[in-house]
């Protein structure tokens, strides 16, 4: 019996439209990144990566210090830091804040952290309307889906599907041109911005020495969310800190280029505290919610804590041969792709989806493009080893252990190994250009062997290495 995730993955693989949508979009993002990172466009790219890695490492290793410094600085600029163990506490805080201020409508700019805690749905239970304002997020909110990609949430939908979603939920004419669709969203959301009481954002960076929230975006919805409503609440994971505003010179150069190939995104907002005395506009109240939600558990592992360096650029997704085939919704949590494969098990616990760290060919493309140099393939291997260790303690693994013990014995007995090899070759017959194992006799197409063989194949059997070696040795001697 195939597991549910296997059925879903097969469905995605068989969907030609979806396959070409994923392939085209990630391909374009890869091209854009490659141009932006070309040696003549950014000669010191590798130096910047090294510096970004050093800063993240330093910050994470001294995180308690920077969290406290950040809190002091936010307060010094008239804002307030709120600490949250988990999503429940974020919801509780926002619910109480809304009640106290008589707020009904919340506008939101794109944030993976709030996706992680299902913020919209949970606020909905408290009769608060939460509207996503990034175009991609707005589309998938209307469609009732979760983001397909860290940077491009609606990457899997065509314009025709978006048109249908808009017609169904907004009662507008069926328009399929992206310009028209964008205009519809602009007009609808403009009214929401002007009516909203609270703007909720995430944070790309939190700056300890300034008490500042840094937001990076292209559409202007984060600026609207932090300018139009009276209250701004930023929800951010504790790992988002950088020590100094000046460190942004490194991170901003890497983030836009890695994500979409932009040297800088259209808007970079550096926000600290509410509107000050003389300033004409801006919010009256400014809160930053610092969220743990499993991050301190990740911190405890000296090596794997580097998972927290991630700046959510999405480059590892675009370059991952597995993500590009199975797509974003086949990962068990909101974080997809290689980074999702290493952080999901660490945040949620290994038992949740033990197959996840194995869903990788370990090709290393993710590590190569990571702007903060997270060694994703090695962390995947470590997680695999943890999964196996945990499973070994369970009784159901006897057959596999037996098989490997037998294999080890065969490998230590060269004569028997060779005989088995010859026997297998004879059993398969001569090659006909097609796969080898796929033509295996019914005997081998049984039970646990079939599961193993269904994913593996070999070219037609020729002469074995040992045979070739003997021929060669004989020739050299003569």
């Amino acid at each position: 019996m195939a597991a549910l995730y296997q059925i879903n993955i097969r469905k995605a693989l068989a969907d030609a439209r979806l396959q070409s949508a994923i392939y085209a979009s990630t391909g374009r993002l890869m091209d854009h990144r490659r141009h932006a990172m070309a040696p003549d466009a950014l000669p010191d790219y590798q130096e910047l990566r090294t510096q970004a890695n050093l800063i993240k490492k330093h910050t994470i290793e001294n995180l308690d210090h920077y969290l406290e410094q950040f809190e002091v600085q936010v307060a010094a600029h008239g804002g307030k830091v709120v600490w949250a163990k988990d999503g429940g506490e974020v919801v509780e805080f926002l619910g109480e804040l809304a009640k106290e201020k008589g707020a009904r409508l919340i506008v939101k700019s794109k944030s993976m952290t709030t996706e992680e805690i299902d913020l919209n749905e949970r606020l909905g239970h408290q009769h608060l309307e939460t509207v996503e304002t990034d175009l991609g997020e707005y589309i998938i909110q209307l469609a009732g889906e979760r983001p397909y990609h860290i940077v491009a949430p609606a990457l899997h939908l065509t314009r025709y599907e978006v048109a249908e979603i808009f017609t169904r939920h907004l009662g507008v004419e069926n328009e399929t041109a992206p310009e028209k669709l964008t205009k519809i969203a602009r007009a609808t959301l403009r009214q929401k911005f002007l009516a909203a009481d609270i703007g909720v954002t995430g944070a790309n960076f939190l700056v300890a020495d300034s008490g500042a929230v840094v937001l990076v975006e292209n559409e202007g919805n984060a600026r609207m969310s932090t300018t139009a409503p009276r209250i701004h609440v930023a929800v951010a994971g504790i790992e988002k800190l950088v020590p100094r505003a000046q460190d942004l010179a490194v991170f901003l150069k890497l983030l836009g280029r890695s994500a979409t190939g932009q040297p800088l995104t259209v808007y970079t907002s550096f926000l600290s505290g509410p509107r000050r005395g003389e300033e004409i506009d801006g919010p009256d109240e400014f809160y930053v919610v610092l969220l743990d939600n499993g991050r301190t558990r990740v911190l405890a592992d000296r090596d794997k804590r580097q998972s927290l360096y991630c700046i959510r650029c999405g480059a590892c997704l675009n370059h991952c041969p597995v993500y590009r085939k199975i797509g974003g919704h086949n990962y068990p949590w909101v974080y997809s792709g290689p980074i999702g494969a290493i952080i999901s098990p660490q945040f949620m616990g290994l038992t949740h989806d033990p197959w996840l760290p194995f869903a990788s060919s370990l090709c290393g493309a993710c590590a190569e493009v990571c702007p903060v140099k997270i060694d994703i393939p090695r962390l995947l291997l470590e997680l695999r080893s943890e999964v196996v260790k945990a499973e070994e303690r369970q009784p159901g693994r006897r057959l596999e252990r037996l098989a490997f013990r037998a294999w080890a014995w065969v490998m230590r007995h060269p004569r028997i190994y060779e005989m088995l090899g010859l026997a297998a070759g004879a059993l398969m017959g001569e090659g006909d250009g097609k796969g080898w194992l796929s033509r295996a006799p019914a005997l081998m197409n049984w039970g646990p062997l079939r599961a193993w063989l269904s994913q593996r194949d070999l070219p037609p059997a020729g002469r074995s290495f040992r045979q070739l070696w003997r021929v060669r040795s004989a020739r050299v001697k003569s």
Partner: protein
Amino acid sequence: MSREYVLHKTRTALGRNVGQAPAPAPPVRLRIPQVDVEVRLANFFQALEKLAGKTSRAGSPAEARAYVAALIGDRPAVASNAPFLRECGIPGLPSVRTDFTGREALRAVCATADFGITSADYALADTGTLVLLSSSQEARMISLLPPVHVALVPRERLLTGLDELLTLLPQPSEQTSSMVLITGPSRTADIEQILVRGVHGPGEIHVVVV
């Protein structure tokens, strides 16, 4: 309390004590290239035009005023209180409204104006970026709500790039609650990775370097 809980768990995970000083941070990395002002100007225009920004050079404040007058015609515009706009005579243009000090009044005007006119505290040559610090002279909304943003920038405010900006302003939060870097018109590629300009912010941006 969650504050103590999160901090305690963080310290335990890292093996650190309450109030323990951090290890020395890696030195800041800022590199400011030497670029002649004419080259800077050319770079700025090139970068912004690549993003479909409209650029123009004005020899004098009067020329800048003429550019703006021709652009907006008699359509409604809102201008910030920046002294440089005053110097260029922008408030004198017939369809321009300015001198707003209250948020609500400004919001109502910005919501219906066709043009938002501002200056900029700095501009970054290598990326074609405008830097605006929120103050009594520059509001956040003027460069955000109207569909077209027009910025008049004196040429001595043109910096080489981000590194020079952060060298001049090592802590922007000391000066303002909001510093925004604007690099081209508002855009999205959320539908099929097809570029569309003018989502929530202005779809058109004009920069006049004076």
